């Protein structure tokens, strides 16, 4: 983590790092809220609040991408690189893991590992 931190300190300025963090944070909050839809009965969460939260995070992300990221190509590129890295790390690690243990094939269904 420290090495990634140092790389960003050297490669990006404060505004770019903040913009990058904002975009990634919105993506994470959206994913977590979407996941919450499957467990809201268990957590006794309000469905309306969850819908408002998802619309707020996704809506802000779209506006942010169309307003700020389009004017900051370096930040937009860093965002794409971060997304690609997360995708690549997950797929590479899971393929290595599943080669060693074929029974634990990944699935996006709850309770499966």
């Amino acid at each position, binding site marked *: *983590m*420290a*090495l*990634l*931190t*140092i790389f*960003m*300190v*050297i490669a*990006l*300025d*404060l505004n770019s*790092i*903040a*913009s*990058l*963090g*904002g975009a*990634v*944070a*919105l*993506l*994470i*909050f959206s*994913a*977590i809220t*979407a*996941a*919450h*839809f*499957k*467990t809201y009965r*268990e957590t006794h969460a309000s469905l309306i609040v969850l819908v408002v939260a998802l619309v707020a*995070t996704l*809506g*802000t*992300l779209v*506006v*942010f991408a169309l*307003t700020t990221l389009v004017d900051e190509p370096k930040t937009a590129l860093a965002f794409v690189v*971060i*997304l690609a*890295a*997360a*995708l690549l*790390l*997950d*797929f590479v*690690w*899971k393929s*290595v*893991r599943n080669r060693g243990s074929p029974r634990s094939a*990944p*699935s*996006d*269904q*709850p*309770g*499966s*590992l």
Partner: protein
Amino acid sequence: MLTYLAKGFGEGHITGIVSWLFYMTGAIVAAMVATSFGGYASAVVTNGNPSWAIVFAVGLVVVMTLLNVVGSTAVARVQSLIVKVVLAILSVFAIVTITNWNPTLLDPAGYPSLREIVSSVALTFFAFLGFGVITFTAKDLSQPGRQLPRAIYLAIAIATTVYVAVSLGVFGTLTADQVVEYGTTAMAEAAKPTLGQAGYVLMVITALFSTAGAVNASLYPATGMTRHLAEAGQFPPYSAVRSAAAHRSAWW
């Protein structure tokens, strides 16, 4: 937050990808705060030299990583003290600047378009990302079901109050263009008109301590989070990392 993901999507690719993103966000937060530290340190020591700002920022990350590797409990105690002192100074700053503010600087007529305001809200979401760390304290609470929600709501309420009060103080003292021009040191500059040079120095020292503590707090959860995700099968086994060197995951 990662438990919500796993409960909703299972331990598959979606949870894995978002977990890696969450892990990288820790580095983004640390980079942002370290860059602010570098900006303040450079403003004081090298008259704002941008190259030195990067050197100071990288130096802080290295020192804080080494402290995390050592795992000193003294760091945690100092961190706790820093948070209290910083909170007190920010409160004083907000009260003094708001008492002496120029309300015309906050006139909505000078605001940017709604689209730009909504876009800037993305950064606000980023500012609130750290609250997930509070759940790490659950194991130390006698009644986590009751105490944890209270702690989270209270922390969000206090942080929001401080964020809003400090913002009102800064934007009620400086114009938006001045805030952009001063960049990382805008808060210290906002202290000058009411508190003079002493106020500037106080805010610089506060910012240096605050950012140093925040970098430490951003790097600290790396080890625990890596271990948790490795146990869930989302990350490579923590034991492999641990066997290479104790707590080396702070670097990775």
